[in-house]
């Protein structure tokens, strides 16, 4: 771009690896003074990794950061803060046990005779809060306030020092409309002062309202940098989700067996605050239902509600075949409704147990403590799944934590399939795994459905949802807005549905 001013921050060739996985691969990124820049991408695209690298929370494995043209190296968040780069994280990183004033002033409290001058702490905090149009008692404990107020306090803390670059990671996710308007007023003011603002949000409307420039990431790589006026909303979503037309033809969409379409699982009015509200869904035997929606649309929350992982705040879940309404994952498994979690490292794999134990775990848990599956049978069972799913290395006694992402996902699938499930809910089963494993998983889902299993398939990649799913449920802002057969949809039409701006304002 042909800006006359040199960029304030410039990141070049940024690469970050976690073990074997590359979270960020040679990404270039820049911000100009007095602009609002947005970083866009799906979960796992590398947004938070890039932010962390920029703010000193993560070291770069390769590449460099330049501030005002001078190469800098931040060894800690503290270094970055000293250099004028302030961050407000999505998970509020303040201290709920201390007062609002302290949270703003902590670490640089005004002192008199060596003691903290509480009067001045409070008055300076009041000024900082007033800048944001916030009228709250600075002496009150932070924890007594709503998340929205806490978010604004975090911003007040960031602004109360000399700030050159302000990073806002999902700052509006807990704010209401008025609060968002107030925040935008502040952002515009900061822009006038020449501050560079990185605004990360999954609300496209907000991005288009406030931002000047967008950088899009996908799977840890740079897609491109665009001026907001030159990028249509639909193009943005398309760039975020990625699309390679060649891939689409690889598998003919399976014809759903319409003959005996018996409902196996139904959820009516499912509500889990704050993720999903009043979602109604029916799953038919032998079908793959894809869930399509942007980040934050309630995909994962719906999956967890369907498998009784989270307690429902409203609505009913019914396993039609058995007439049961499970309330815990254990009960869901008893009714043969199983869930493969989005985050397999923290919620799925038991990393220090062996592959064999990981595969047999859920089945053994169903059998109970005293009916131990004999060692030989367990081995045989695990071996057969390792063989069937092509888990590599085929070493049953290796701790599952040492496997690659794709193989861990297959171990998870093996654990669930060993339960002979009726309903399989897969949350992002193909995220972060290599192409070969991805195709394996997709084909497996097809085969399973052909043999009568019902599958709920969640993916951020729309063409994958279309390719695997017979029907697609479209989620927006925690609600199912439509459920359509996939043959009637193209990636473009699905994109349009998923990215549609909110019209339910009235």
């Amino acid at each position: 771009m042909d800006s006359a001013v040199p960029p304030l921050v410039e990141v070049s060739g940024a690469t970050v690896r976690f073990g074997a996985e590359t979270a960020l691969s040679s990404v270039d990124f820049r911000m100009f003074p007095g602009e609002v820049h947005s970083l866009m991408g799906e979960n796992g695209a590398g947004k938070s990794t890039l932010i962390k690298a920029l703010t000193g929370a993560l070291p770069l494995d390769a590449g460099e950061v330049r501030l005002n043209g001078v190469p800098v190296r931040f060894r800690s968040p503290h270094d970055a803060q000293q250099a004028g780069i302030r961050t407000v994280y999505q998970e509020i990183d303040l201290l709920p046990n201390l007062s609002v004033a302290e949270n703003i002033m902590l670490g640089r409290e005004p002192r008199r005779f060596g003691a903290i001058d509480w009067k001045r702490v409070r008055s300076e905090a009041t000024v900082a809060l007033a800048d944001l149009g916030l009228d709250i008692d600075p002496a009150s404990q932070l924890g007594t306030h709503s998340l929205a107020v806490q978010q604004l306090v975090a911003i007040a803390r960031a602004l109360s020092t000399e700030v050159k670059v302000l990073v806002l990671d999902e700052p509006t996710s807990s704010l209401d409309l008025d609060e968002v308007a107030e925040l935008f007023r502040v952002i515009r003011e900061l822009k006038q002062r020449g501050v560079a603002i990185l605004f990360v949000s999954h609300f496209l409307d907000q991005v288009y309202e406030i931002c000047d420039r967008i950088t899009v990431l996908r799977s840890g790589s740079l897609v491109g940098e665009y001026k907001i006026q030159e990028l249509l909303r639909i193009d943005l979503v398309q760039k975020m989700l990625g699309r390679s037309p060649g891939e689409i033809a690889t598998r003919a969409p399976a014809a759903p067996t319409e003959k005996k379409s018996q409902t196996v699982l139904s959820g009516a009015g499912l509500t889990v605050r704050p993720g999903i509200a009043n979602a109604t869904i029916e799953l038919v035997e032998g079908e793959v239902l894809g869930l399509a929606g942007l980040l934050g649309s309630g995909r994962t929350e719906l999956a967890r509600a369907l498998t009784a992982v989270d307690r429902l705040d409203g609505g009913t879940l019914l396993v039609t075949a058995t007439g049961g309404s499970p309330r815990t994952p254990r009960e869901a498994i008893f009714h043969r409704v199983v869930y493969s979690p989005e985050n397999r490292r923290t919620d799925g794999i038991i990393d220090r147990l062996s592959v064999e134990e990981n595969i047999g775990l859920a089945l053994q848990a169903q059998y109970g403590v005293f009916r131990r599956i004999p060692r030989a049978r367990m081995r045989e069972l695990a071996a057969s799944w390792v063989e069937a799913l092509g888990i590599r290395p085929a070493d049953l006694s290796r701790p599952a934590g040492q496997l690659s992402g794709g193989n861990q996902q297959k171990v998870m699938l093996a654990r669930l399939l060993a339960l002979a499930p009726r309903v399989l809910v897969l949350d992002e089963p193909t995220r972060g795994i290599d192409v070969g494993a991805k195709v394996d998983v997709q084909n497996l889902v097809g085969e399973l459905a052909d043999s009568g299993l019902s599958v709920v398939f969640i993916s951020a990649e729309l063409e994958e949802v279309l390719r695997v799913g017979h029907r697609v449920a479209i989620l927006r802002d925690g609600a199912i807005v439509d459920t359509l057969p996939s043959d009637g949809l193209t990636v473009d039409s699905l994109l349009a549905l998923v990215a549609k701006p909110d019209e339910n304002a009235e």
Partner: protein
Amino acid sequence: MKNIVKHRVFWPAVALVALLMLNAIARPSFLSITVQDGELYGSLISLLRNSAPLMLVALGMTIVIATRGIDLSVGAVMAVSGAVALTIIADSPTPEAPGTIATAVAVAVVVTLIAGAWNGFLVAVLGIQPIIATLVLMLAGRGIALLITNGEITTVNSAPYKFMSQGYLLGFPFAFFVSIAAIVIVVLVQRRTALGMLTEAVGINPEASRLAGVRSRGIIWGAYAASGLLAGFAGILYSSNIMAADSNAAGNLIELDAILAVVLGGTSLMGGKFSIAGTVIGVFTIQTLKSTIVFLGVPSPVTPVFMAAVVIVVVAVQSPLLRRTALRAVGSIRGSNSNTTEVAK
């Protein structure tokens, strides 16, 4: 060979053997075993006999630690157990009758089972941190024990009760058989049923275990109950050894020895994978260490200094910081070596 070295119990076993060998060299009498009236005597035999209470407590502690917990109340529970048993025997008209002894032991271990279940309730159901939850009973337990004995040290004369810690069976101390029985039962329960694997799963990743349908609450509860039960038997052995219910001295600081034994045996305090064999080795190591210190002429109250040194060494060896530093050091040595070879070419 590599597999043996890699085995979790390898290094703890090496440490124990080294300690035993040091003792054997320093005092030849250490290995000698004499036979009197068909009963074995000697340092090693006393070791087997004296380690029994710690063995029982450490076994229970291993299971609790595997669930990511800790049980600080074991010493106090031992005191309660001894107090209950001896009070029943002292109040009984027939303190020598096997029936009285059986009743006393049964009531005592049921009480301690309840105490363990209480800990389990606080941890598994109320979700209180294990250290704190068991601290409550650690504090109150000795008070309860003192209350049972009316604040006195109850003493009894009862040959069958005395037999449990001081008697001999088939040439070996009876207490040794109690240890063996406890080890065998714990191993059978953990490894012949699925309990061991499920316990490890819960200890490593509670949330993933819940999603896999593991009943983690019951498993945690059971672990504390088992620990209470085993501490109860340990309390019986202890009181049988001195034939008195000394509520202040019974099991004093044993929770620390037990934790140390578990850690020495290679089980991580972070929960998960556990090793009963390791704990057994750990118990013998501690007991040998104590006997060594006494042999060296160090007054036994000073023993804790050595224990502290051992913990610091173990902890330092396990610490990521030291490991990283060591790896770096090795790496740099290797690096410089390869450099020199290049130069040599």
